[in-house]
């Protein structure tokens, strides 16, 4: 029960971070990507602030054997830089620039940016389902 409460709070913190930072405003995101036009680099500080906090924690946690509520850490197991990684990231970037939405901000905007964010999330779920079906 405590572990579920922690997970909910984690989601709330993440969403508040997105809302405070400006990531939930698609116009800010496209302005951030508009390098050749009227570029607004502000959102680079979001990633900067997040890494500044998270990177030291990762270093501290690395040598521990298990997290509080689990018997082990679920670190990503893939290490190869392959075509799938680059192609996937490239396709994601096109969708990001096209909409100004990445997955988190679109989920947070479901109510406040309806119907746009709802359409985006429905299509995103379809895209996720499509790749997962192909993989089987």
């Amino acid at each position, binding site marked *: 029960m405590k572990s579920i409460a922690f997970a909910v709070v*984690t989601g709330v913190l993440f969403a508040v971070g997105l809302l405070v930072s400006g990531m939930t405003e698609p116009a800010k995101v496209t302005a951030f990507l508009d390098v050749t036009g009227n570029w607004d680099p502000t959102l680079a500080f979001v990633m900067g602030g997040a890494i500044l906090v998270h990177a030291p924690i990762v270093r501290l946690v690395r040598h521990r054997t298990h997290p509080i509520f689990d018997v082990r850490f679920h670190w990503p197991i893939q290490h190869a830089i392959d075509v799938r990684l680059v192609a996937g990231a490239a396709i994601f970037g096109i969708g990001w620039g096209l909409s100004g939405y990445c997955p988190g901000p679109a989920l947070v905007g479901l109510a406040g940016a309806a119907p746009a964010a709802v359409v985006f999330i429905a299509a995103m779920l379809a895209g996720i389902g499509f790749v997962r079906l192909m993989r089987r």
Partner: protein
Amino acid sequence: MTVWAILRALGGGALIGLAASLALVAHGRIAGISGTVGRALDDDGGRPFRLAFLAGLIATGFVAAVVAPQAIGASVRSLPALAIAGFLVGVGTTLGNGCTSGHGVCGISRGSGRSVVAVGTFMLTGAITVAILGASS
């Protein structure tokens, strides 16, 4: 770009970093949104964490829509464009195993080479897309 906007970006980013840290320290999980959504229902022991995390994230958005609607900006594109974009984001993040949070925040913080390559790639194709289409349409 104003000082206030930079402080907001830094502060909001710090909160995101804090959330990612909590996910790791408490649950041993990577707080990448695309993976959390894509594997939400997978029966691998992480389902309760993922569903509770997403519930908190989405519920906060519903509260914000009432108490701070200005923080949720309007869409800059048409609905058909958003449908295409959403599909591309779903396909791309599943193939590439991550998005702005999984690769951009968690992966870079871990010093992952895969994430550095992914972030460089999606920043580049995102910028090219906006260079072609403009920042709004």
